[in-house]
């Protein structure tokens, strides 16, 4: 049940982030919306690997190596999400750097005023 709740929240965050990125006119706020969608995706992926009644994939006195397969949750989604979070920061920094450069050139962050990109 916990996994379903977390997954629904993750999906909701993706939608909120998408809506925010498409409707806001301020570049910085669009980037904020992107990070929200990013967090949502990560929550969904981790929730897929969760199994009720099992514990984290770390072997210790409570989880001996012999019965690990019956006691731990799926470690693969966690490894993937760990990568995704780190790359997410790299992408955010890149977007912020370009947004700042754009501001330096055009003196505005409002995409309505950046007419070269108008469609």
């Amino acid at each position: 049940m916990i996994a379903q709740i977390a997954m629904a929240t993750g999906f909701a965050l993706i939608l909120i982030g998408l809506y925010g990125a498409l409707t806001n006119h301020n570049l910085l706020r669009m980037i904020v919306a992107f990070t929200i969608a990013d967090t949502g995706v990560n929550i969904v992926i981790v929730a897929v690997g969760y199994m009720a009644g099992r514990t984290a994939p770390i072997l210790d006195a409570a989880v001996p190596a012999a019965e690990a397969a019956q006691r731990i949750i799926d470690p693969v989604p966690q490894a993937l999400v760990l990568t995704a979070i780190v790359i997410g920061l790299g992408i955010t920094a890149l977007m912020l750097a370009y947004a700042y450069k754009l501001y330096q050139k055009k003196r505005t962050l409002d995409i309505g005023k950046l007419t070269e990109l108008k469609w």
Partner: protein
Amino acid sequence: MIRRAVVLALVLAMGAIFATLLAGYAPDGDLNLTARYYADRTAPDIGSANIVTAIIVTYRGLDTLGEVTVLFLSATIVGLVLAGGRRRETAQRPPVPVGELLTTGSRFLVPLIMLLGVYVFVNGHLTPGGGFQGGAVVASGVLLMLLADPLKHFSHRLIAAVESVAGFAYVVIGVLGLVLAGGFLDNRILPLGELGALASAGAIPLIYSLVGLKVGAEFSSMLASLSETEEL
């Protein structure tokens, strides 16, 4: 507004797709084949108590090398994009008053934060944490230094040196794995040791420390580039 209506329709359509996915989701009762392999074979083959670490550093080590490369590229591009006109003298600006509390506090806290970062990445194979988390903690120490003394010109050369030495050593260890053990980035070039001891899991503590240094240097360079941009 028509634009907002289109956006809303798009979001609702995606929401419908997500709702279908959610309704059809049934949690697994048991580990799938891949996860079962990792759960069963990590202790005898890798010797790492933290299975996530074993996956990141050894089973999918090449992925991690690629990830660190992507991070390096994005740090470089951030530096490149923001480089224009940064060299103008920051010292000419009137010094921004920084609170006494922040200055003294940072002198006290920065070494502790760095120590915590090192602890996190050295123990990556035993406890939650590892190179990426430890690198981020180290970078927050650098961030505190930047906040406490914004006028100090940050040594990009030192960051670059740490970054490239760690990256080079990472690849050298990977090639050593190819020569001495089963394949690229194989951790069995050092004895596996006893499960749960600090000096165990072969080369994993070494590799994850190098990843930690590299990631910490990359994050620090991003933060320094963004904080040193010229005042408009």
